[in-house]
Each structure stands twice: as structure tokens, then as C-alpha cells.
């Protein structure tokens, strides 16, 4: 109804808007802009690709709660997926660099466990780069 009125008598309607209405409109625009920024342009990852040794083991959606048990070169590792994030939660390696990397949530982030030869890479619809210099 409001939309139809706006199309018919735009000037009249704008004059009738109160401060509260304007606040709602502005806040909605800010909200939309924020969501666009954080969900669209910030390359939030949607999937995690797990490689074991020379093979891609599997690709999982990040939109789930899950623990994945894997057998690497040294032994058993556990990868956790939760609410758009993924991490190594257990690894048999000595250095534990992979576990200390913590949660990954952005596309292109990688965690590599060289001793156990397992790696995680977060993927989005569009990749930020082809390869990483580290």
C-alpha cells in the first residue's frame, strides 16, 4: 500500500514521513550495506577442501557442525567444522603449528600440517588467488 502510494504521489508521501520513518529507512540501508560488505565482498568461505598426501580427500560445506577423523602419514588427526569455520583440532605432529592456527573462516585461508601431510583450504565461489607465496 505504502509502495503504491509512493509511486502515485511521491512528493506528498516524502513530506508525510516522520523522523522515526527516516531513521528506519537509514538504518535499513546501513544494515543492507553492512551485510553486503561482510557476506558478499569479504569472500566468506563456503566450503573446506581437505587434502591427505597427494590426494584431495574431500570437500565439505562449512554450514554444518561436524568432526572429521583422518589418517595422515604420522597418525590420526581431527578436523572440526562449525558455523562457517574449520580448524585442525587434533594432530599427532610434534610442532602443533596446524592446531595453533585456530579457526579459519575466510576464503583462501590454508592450514598445512607438513609432518602429517594433511592440509585444509577454505574455498569460496571465486578464488582470491591461484597460489600462495609463504
Amino acid at each position: 500500500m505504502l509502495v503504491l502510494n509512493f509511486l502515485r504521489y511521491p512528493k506528498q508521501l516524502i513530506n508525510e514521513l516522520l523522523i522515526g520513518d527516516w531513521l528506519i529507512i537509514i538504518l535499513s540501508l546501513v544494515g543492507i550495506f553492512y551485510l553486503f560488505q561482510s557476506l558478499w565482498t569479504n569472500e566468506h568461505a563456503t566450503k573446506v577442501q581437505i587434502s591427505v598426501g597427494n590426494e584431495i580427500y574431500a570437500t565439505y560445506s562449512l554450514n554444518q557442525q561436524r568432526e572429521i577423523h583422518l589418517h595422515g602419514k604420522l597418525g590420526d588427526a581431527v578436523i572440526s567444522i562449525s558455523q562457517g569455520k574449520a580448524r585442525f583440532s587434533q594432530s599427532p605432529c610434534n610442532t602443533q603449528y596446524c592446531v595453533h592456527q585456530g579457526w579459519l573462516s575466510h576464503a583462501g585461508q590454508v592450514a598445512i600440517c607438513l609432518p602429517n601431510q594433511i592440509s585444509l583450504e577454505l574455498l569460496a565461489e571465486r578464488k582470491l588467488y591461484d597460489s600462495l607465496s609463504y
Partner: protein
Amino acid sequence: MRYLLLLFTFLFTGCFKEPLYHSQSYVFGTLVDISIYGETDERARFLANNILADFQNLHKQLHAWKPVSGNKLSELGELNAAISAGNQSVKVSPALANMLLDATDLSLKSNGLFNPAIGHLISTWGFQRDEFSAVNVDETAIKNLLHAQPRMTDLVIKANAIYSTNPTVKVDLGGYAKGYALDIAASYLRKEQAKNALINIGGNVIALGKHGDKPWRVGIQHPRAPTAIATLDLADGWAIGTSGDYQRYFMLNGQRYCHIIDPRTGYPAQQTQSVTVLVPPQAGNKTQAGVLSDVVSKPIFIETAANRNTAAQAFGIENFMVIDAQAAIFVSAKMVNKLHWVDASVKFSTLP
């Protein structure tokens, strides 16, 4: 009807898979990542497997601290054993002799900051192992090795026979071999007329051609976060390499000890988090881009802030980035326009 056609075009373009082959393997004790664009899957797999076989052979030839099969040492391991036993000269393959000559040349250019002869110092710090943990710092051993001054110029290389005038020389090509392998792979692919590829050995990357109609794009690792700090386009024949204190290191009493040893002090360099160098294609008779991408980051990493420019210029390198121990970022004037920062609000200084 028009819309129906449009819909079909979208559907069909969706069906064509991008002709991109991608493989990941563990060689050189690190991750090797090969992308090949524009070849059939079968041919790309054939090319990638040959590259990996070459890498495996190089690894066996150059491994610095482990017997490569049974209890047989690598070719370089045999040479090192003969050097420390003070034996007469050892015959090596022409390939290894040339690598050592080239590494000597580069070591001189770096004023000794790139010094592959300090293998004994590196193992004193515990970095010649697959995994490293905190070591008790053996100050006497370090002092003795510094005093003995092992240098590449101690090697006498004649007609593929080598001996050393200094028995404390132990050659470790850890800062050379990955770059060398990149050059081998690039020249193999060119010979096979494969035009588009991106090869990454443990963070050293070389590009051939393009990724379709766009250049290959490479990310640069953030030294303290599991993400890229910036990305850039890597043009045909260019190579990029990063040396960091975050890949091989241990912590002792709150202090970080990384694998890059300052040959002047015998201690790990501590004023830098990471150095990235971007290297253009080189003339055929010169040291190639891959090797330079591996080697040149080390002297810049070790050098004091005032001398970083000089260290880069000694190798004709104009594009580099340094992140120091305080996380301050310095980018060479030429490199500034090539970088796309992942976090657009990042602060950095441009080097004159």
C-alpha cells in the same frame, strides 16, 4: 524466445569445465602445488608427474642431512662427508658442480649473507631435521664455527672434482634448491610447449603464461595470520619467493628462533618477520628467476634496515617487501603499484 536463448547460453557455458589441471604433492619435505592451464587433463597429468619425478630426483641428489635410500647419502651428503673427513677431492655430477659454482657466485654477491657453507651452524640450531624443537643454545660450538669461517670460496671446483680447503664447510642448499627446481620445471614445460602453468614449491612460485585470459594471481602469506596479506599478478616468466620466521622456528624463553641464520653472528636473524621478492625473467646465460626468488630474500631478511636496499640491488632486484619484527611493512617503490592489499586499510611505507 530471446530470454530462452539467453538462459540456454548460461546453462551451456556452465557445462564447459575450465581447462585447469591442479595437483598437490609432498616433495622436498614441503608442499608442491602445480597448476597447468589449457592442456587436456591427460597431458597435464603426464607433465605434472614428470616434473614431480624430477623434483624427487633433485631431492635425493641434494638432501643435506638424511640418507636418501637405505643408508646411502645423497650426492651432496657424500661430498659433505668427504669434506669433514678431510679427504681428497670427490667427483660430482656436472649438474651439482654447476649449482655449487652458481651458489658461490651468489654468496659473493650477497657479501656472504647467503652462505650455503654453514650447514654445521644450521644443524647446531636443530634446523636440519624434519621437525624442530627448542635446542639448548651451544654457544661454544657456535663460536668455534664462526671462528672457522666456512665459506663457499673454500671449495675448489675443477672439472667436476671438488675438495675443500676448510673441513668445517658443510653445504646446505636449503635456500637454493627449491628455486633451482622451479627453473628446471619451467624449462621442461617450455620444451614441451606447455604455455600456461603455475608452480609452487614450498612458497616459491614461478609463472608461465596465464590463467586463461587473466594473469596468474599469487597471494603473499601474512606472517602472523592464517591468511594472505596481499595479492599480485605474476606475469609470464616471473618468480616470487618469501622467506619468513613463521614456517621453521622454535620458541625459547619467549624468544623466537627462526631457521634463517645470520652468518656474521651465528644466531637466527631476529629483526624481520618476512621478506618477499619478485623477480623478472633473466637472460638465458644468467642465474634464472626461480633461483633468485629463493636466494635473494635471505640477505634482505638478515640485513639491517638501512642496508636492505643495497642487499636487493646487489642482485638487480627492484621489487621486494619487508615486514619487520615490529610488523611494520616496507615496500619498494616499484612493487607498490603491483600489490593488492587484502585489508585495504593496511599501513605501509614506501622505500625510496
